Each structure stands twice: as structure tokens, then as C-alpha cells.
């Protein structure tokens, strides 16, 4: 990255190339580049290094904004219920294992719900992970109603006085109306046991995804109200810059990042580290 020397048109072109290639998208990139042109004038910046420092500060501030949901009230709910959703193959099941593991390290009791009753060996996959993470699992037969599994999992967690319920759902494209209805039904059914549940609706997003992530965020949040994003596969070469565009447009914060395929490969989202990595 062109970080030294005078600020000329080449620097802005390099900046645009970097942001676009980080999957920030045309709209967000143009907004940021325009903002930087203004800052060069208003702050009288003379060196490209200064420009990048200003931009990094701007991005960190953007990504650090707290979300609009009543976060603290929701955290104290017991059991705390997290509904995990997302399109096919992004890492939902593996991420749930990591979340369960994280809660277990805090000494919490965790129930995972095998509400993906559709995909081949989905229940078996979660069973193995639950065992490794030390979580209880509630499951029905393959083909069962996902809402019934979710309901039973919450009921069991209440009866066993567990701290966390994490619900695994089948991957689905956000454009499939009937599958989105299935998610809404899960949410409604949880509300019967606890009107405040689910306390979190976590959308799992693959860092290699491009602009389609905006459509995913839009439709999942319209259907259910997404409270946070978990950005997976950041151990690859993709930058995941689309979360900046998602934050701009929908105000949805990134809560965690996935950096590998093992139980401890989950980290809380750190805006400064994330922004630094964008420019590496």
C-alpha cells in the first residue's frame, strides 16, 4: 500500500483500489474517498501516511459504534437465547460449537438446539461438536419441525436452569420466502416460552462474501431483526470489508470473528485490529 510521500491523485486511486478489493463496495468506498479528500483540505494533510492514519481512525470509530439494541438488559436474561442464522455453508454450526465452548470456559451451562432438521448429517455434526464443547444437545429426528426443536431446547434449558441456549438452523438463501417464514416461526415459538426470546439473532457471514452480504443483511434483518454479525473465515485472505457497508446501511455490529476450524478459533470483534488488517 502506497503509504509515503505527497498526496496526489495516485494515492486516491490506490486508496480506492484497496477499499474495493477489501469488499467495501463502490458506494462505501466513494463515500470514504470523498471524506478523505475533504480531510486532506480541512486538516491540511501533506503526507499519504497521515491520510491513512485519519482513515483508520475514521473506520475504527465507525465500527466501534454501539448497536441500537438494548444490549445490557438482554444479557441478563436467563437462559440467554441466541438464534443463529445465515446462508448455506458460512459456518453456523461450527461457530455455535465455538460459542458453546467460550461459554463453558466461563463456567456456564449450555444447551444447543439441533434445529437444522433438513441437511444430511446436520444433527450428527452438531452432536459431535456439542460433545467436544461440553454442551447439552436437544435434537429430534431428521425432518422434524425446527420450531419444535427450538421450543424443546428452551424448555429444557429453563427446566435444567441452564445459562445459554444456542439454536442452530439450516443454511438458507435469504431469497427463499418459505424458508424465511420457517425462521419467523422459530422466533414466534420461542416467544411463547419467553416473550423476550430470542435475545440475540446472530447472522453468520462468510468473510469471502462480496456485495451479496448486503442483500443477506437486508432480508434477514427485515424478517427477524439481526442483533449482531459473526464474520467467519477471516483466517483466509478475504478482508470482510462488507461489514463496514452493512454497518453504514443497517447499523448492525460485528460481535465475533471466526479465524479457523477449531473450538477456540473465535475472537470478540476488535475494530482496531480489523481496520489494521484491511490495509495490510
Amino acid at each position, binding site marked *: 500500500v502506497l503509504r509515503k510521500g505527497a498526496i496526489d491523485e495516485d494515492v486516491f486511486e490506490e486508496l480506492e483500489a484497496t477499499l474495493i478489493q477489501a*469488499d467495501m463496495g463502490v458506494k462505501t468506498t466513494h463515500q470514504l474517498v470523498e471524506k478523505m479528500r475533504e480531510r486532506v483540505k480541512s486538516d491540511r494533510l501533506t503526507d499519504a501516511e497521515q491520510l491513512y492514519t485519519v482513515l483508520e481512525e475514521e473506520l475504527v470509530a465507525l465500527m466501534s459504534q454501539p448497536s441500537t439494541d438494548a444490549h445490557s438488559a438482554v444479557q441478563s436474561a436467563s437462559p440467554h437465547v441466541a438464534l443463529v442464522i445465515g446462508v448455506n*455453508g458460512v459456518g453456523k454450526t461450527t461457530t455455535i460449537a465455538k460459542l458453546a465452548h467460550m461459554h463453558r470456559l466461563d463456567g456456564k451451562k449450555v444447551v444447543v438446539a439441533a434445529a437444522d432438521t433438513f441437511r444430511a448429517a446436520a444433527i450428527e455434526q452438531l452432536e459431535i461438536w456439542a460433545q467436544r464443547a461440553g454442551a447439552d444437545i436437544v435434537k429430534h429426528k431428521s425432518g422434524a419441525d425446527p420450531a419444535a426443536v427450538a421450543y424443546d431446547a428452551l424448555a429444557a434449558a429453563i427446566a435444567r436452569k441452564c445459562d445459554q441456549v444456542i439454536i442452530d438452523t439450516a443454511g438458507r438463501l435469504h431469497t427463499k420466502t418459505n424458508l424465511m417464514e420457517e425462521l419467523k416461526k422459530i422466533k414466534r415459538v420461542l416467544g411463547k416460552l419467553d416473550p423476550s426470546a430470542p435475545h440475540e439473532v446472530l447472522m453468520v457471514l*462468510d468473510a469471502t462474501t*462480496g456485495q451479496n452480504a448486503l442483500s443477506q443483511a437486508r432480508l434477514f434483518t427485515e424478517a427477524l431483526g439481526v442483533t449482531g454479525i459473526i464474520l467467519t473465515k477471516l483466517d483466509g485472505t478475504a478482508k470482510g470489508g462488507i461489514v463496514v457497508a452493512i454497518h453504514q446501511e443497517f447499523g448492525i455490529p460485528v460481535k465475533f470473528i471466526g479465524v479457523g476450524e477449531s473450538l477456540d478459533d473465535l475472537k470478540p470483534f476488535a475494530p482496531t485490529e480489523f481496520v489494521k488488517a484491511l490495509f495490510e
Partner: protein
Amino acid sequence: SLSEKLQKTLRNLRGLGKLSEKNMKDGLRDVRMALLEADVNYKVVKDFIGHVQDKALGREVLESITPGQQLVKVVYDELVRMMGKEAEPLRLSSEPPTVIMLIGLQGSGKTTTAAKLARSLRTRGHQPLLVAADVYRPAAVQQLIVLSEQLGIPAYSDENSNDPVGICRDSVQHARRSNRDVLILDTAGRLHINDELIEELRRIREILHPHEVLLVADAMTGQDAVNVAEQFHSRVGITGVILTKLDGDARGGAALSIKSVTGQPIKFAGIGEKLDAFEVFHPDRVASRILG
């Protein structure tokens, strides 16, 4: 859509002589934005616009259609040409078993696609054998076995082995003994930058000499598609691509990025979760999608 945008941008050019660098400049900027929004890689877009400009330059601005329509036609034709005008068939060996190896990033759809491919081959009179070579992902072998049972197509696995290379090697003997003429190897998802796992693929390739090594890639992949495709191709060597999840609303610009950086044909498209949601890749359909 790009057509509508270009109609506006170039409306003053109608019947105004030839398309020149100057009068096309704004139109080309619209095309560039549309391609970037469609997830075509930044550098690929740069090259592509260069090609379009060369093709369009000097053309008479016809009276019969608008300059916008004319430019869209050049872009569309160039997209289709670059993504491989006609479908390229699967390479089958004259000495069975044909070996087809599926590789790619985690979650791209390899296991599901392996089953779809097996089903499609059986429809065309072949006797495929699915090989469960993913020993890492929990219940991955089980996933392939369940799919194979749904189809009534045999699957080879070895629950006592944690060596994917050995499993693949042994599957060849098994195919011969049971008269299966096509082997479909389902491998574990891996990062293009994981040296150890890339080396594992190279070893499988060395021992089995697959007739096809197909990169299974997600249609919603963004700018990173070039890095992934470039690495898998230079380090393992691919002979073709299968683009999955085209049943969503991703514009699919990754198709152009992958084709342009590897030069290998996109052979098939995954268009759903069911095992019959599989078809030959149509570059013209993806070209229209990319243009929006």
C-alpha cells in the same frame, strides 16, 4: 440496470458518428461501476474495460439502436466470450475409471455437488462411485453416505483411516472390483494458503492422475475470488470450475474473475440444495446477471 443507466449517460450520442474514447468515457465508467457492484475483481474489471473499449472504438453509432444499447451489446458479448461461449463437457477417460476430484474452500458446496455430479452421471448411463475423503470435518463422511443412500449410488469410505491420500488411492481398486467407471473424490474444504493441506491435494493428484480437478466455488464470493482461484490453480492445478448457490441473488461476478485468472472453463452450476439442482453452466445467463 446497466442498460437503463447507459441509455441516460449516452443519450446524446445517437447517430452522432463513431464511438470514440472521449464520448465513451462516461459510459465505460457506468460499466465499470456495474461490474464492481457485481463482485467482478477490481483488476479483472480494469482489463475487461480495456477489451470493451478496443471492441467498441470506431464503431459507427447506429441510427437503429441507442449508443447505450450498442455499448451494452459489446459488453454483454465480451462477457459471454470471456466466460466461455459454449459449455465444455466433462473429460471422461477412455480407460475407466475416470477420476474427478472436487476441491475448494470450506463450505463452498463440494460434498453436495459430489452427490449431484454422481446423480447426473448416472442419468447419462455411468456407474459412479462417491469417495468420502474428508476425514476432518465432523460427520463429513456421514453426510456423503446419507446423500449416496438417498440416490442409491455407492460410496466408498474407510472409518479406520485418517489418511485422505490413502482413502483416495484405495478407492481406485474398489472402483475396479465393483465395476464403477467414474470416481468422484469429495475432499475436505481448505484454505488456498494452507500449505500442508494444499500439499495433500497435490499428493492425491500425483497418485491418482485425475482427469478432472474441479474447483467448487461459491457464486457469492467477492474480490477474494481471484486469490483463491489463482492459488488453487497454480499450486494444485485445476481443469474446470463448478459455481454453486446460483439460485440466490448474488450477481456472480466471481465467475468472470475466476475464469479470467485461471483460463479454465466453468463447467457446471449448482442451483439449489436438492440433488437434482445441477446444470451445465450457461455463460449467457451469468452475463445477464452480472450486468443486472
